[in-house]
């Protein structure tokens, strides 16, 4: 059966993409941001997911004001890179996983989440920047990606609670897929930022840290965040953080936070990033057993030990 091994959240600031595309990652301003993701890339290399499910938002690229789907699931085999006004980003085309995607669509819709399904959809920086941060800049993305675009552009986006529950339905869907696939779920966007109006430039680090703390330990508390509170405290565009709750809802109740990074600013935004792992079922048992059995538990333990080396970082 397929299973979700971990959840990753990350900001998707377009300027991060521009810094990568224009080879400016070595500049001191950007170094501070990219260094924070070095360990994440290492984690990803070890995690080797078979599929990534990426919750993100479109920025007037695939969807204009003509149609505004609240949840749009990408069921295509390929998702071309959108031209956001400067030509498409020079990143590999995103390959989907249509069979898993249609399984998820069925399961989630029958679970009463009325998704919009997209057999054709371009993806923008909202999706590709987090992929760069976690995978670097490979010639091909190392695994298929299933995009879920969430409307956070036109008010109201789905509520925090709705997003969390959609995550739960997503977990159920993925875990009922018969093929043995290891899946990582991404929640992207945020953290606090406002890029519009006279209040542009708003950052609320205290809120961001509290959000990260609760995301790991007490996500239920975050499901009570109203849009008004999110916009007031974390900026009009900070409301994107509801997408992180889809990721969190898809994970087990108890998770291990294996990495965290936070820095201000990247362009106009507070950059936040977290990696949460589901606990390996039966891992305790195998660890407790005398080291006599097969190779499997030993390699699991090796992995666990390697991950412990990944320290928590805060700035």
């Amino acid at each position, binding site marked *: 059966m397929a299973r979700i091994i971990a959840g990753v959240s990350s900001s998707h600031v*377009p*300027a991060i993409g521009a810094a990568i595309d224009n080879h400016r990652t070595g500049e001191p301003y950007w170094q501070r941001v990219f260094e924070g993701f070095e360990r994440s890339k290492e984690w990803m290399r070890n995690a080797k997911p078979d599929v990534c499910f990426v919750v993100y938002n479109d*920025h*007037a*690229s695939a969807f*204009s*004001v*003509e149609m*505004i789907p609240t949840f749009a699931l990408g069921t295509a085999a390929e998702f071309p890179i959108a*031209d*956001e*006004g*400067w030509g498409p980003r020079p990143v590999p085309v995103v390959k989907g996983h249509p069979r898993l995607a249609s399984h998820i669509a069925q399961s989630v819709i029958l679970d009463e989440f009325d998704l919009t399904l997209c057999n054709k959809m371009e993806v923008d920086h909202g999706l590709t920047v987090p992929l760069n941060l976690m995978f670097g800049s490979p010639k091909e993305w190392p695994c298929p990606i299933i995009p879920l675009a969430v409307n956070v*552009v*036109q*008010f*109201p986006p789905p509520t925090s609670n709705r997003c969390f529950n959609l995550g739960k339905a997503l977990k159920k869907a993925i875990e009922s897929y018969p093929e043995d696939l290891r899946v990582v779920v991404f929640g992207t966007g945020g953290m*606090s*930022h*406002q*890029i*519009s*109006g*006279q*209040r*542009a*430039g*708003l*950052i*609320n*680090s*205290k*809120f961001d840290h*509290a*959000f990260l703390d*609760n995301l790991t330990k007490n996500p239920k*508390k*975050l499901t*009570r*965040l109203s*849009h*008004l*509170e999110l*916009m*007031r*405290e974390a900026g*009009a*565009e900070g409301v994107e953080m509801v997408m992180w709750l889809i990721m969190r809802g898809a994970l087990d109740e108890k998770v291990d936070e294996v990495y965290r990074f936070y820095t*201000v*600013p990247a*362009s*106009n935004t*507070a950059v936040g990033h977290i990696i949460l792992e589901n606990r390996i079922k039966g891992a305790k048992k195998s660890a407790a057993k005398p080291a006599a059995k097969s190779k499997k538990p030993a390699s699991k333990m090796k992995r666990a030990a390697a991950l412990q080396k990944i320290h928590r970082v805060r700035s």
Partner: protein
Amino acid sequence: MAPAKQKIEKEYDDIPGTYVFDADRSREGYHLNMFCMSLMQAENRKAFKADEAKYLDQFPLTPDQREAILKRQYNRMLELGGNIYFTAKLGATDGHPFQHLAAVMTGSTQQDYADLMLRGGRAVDGNRSRSGKYAKAGSSIVKADKPKSKAKASKGKKRRG
């Protein structure tokens, strides 16, 4: 000017310096945003730059929207139904980095705005509420900062924000 219609009061209008892009604004700004959307294509950007007024004729904009576009009044565009992700495409067509737009919207210079961000951004304190109703609201997930007796006493209220 058309007579002012009775407006539904929206609690998020109390957030200062913020134009929440809701369905009303989306409808009002539909053509403005679709104009911006058209700038995603290189040949349209070229045509717009060659003759802005003529290019805008294809879109049934209100005179106010048209003026705001031609004068690059970015807050006014938001007020008239524009959305920042759309108007940013106009800024990009002009060759401006996003922080230029942010500086225009916040009434500062690009350097001053960039410096503000480097110092950690605009503080939320003092920027929560127009009416003062939510001025001290804080967030339900952030523990109150100062354990002064006064703060403790009002903790319950604060949490309900």
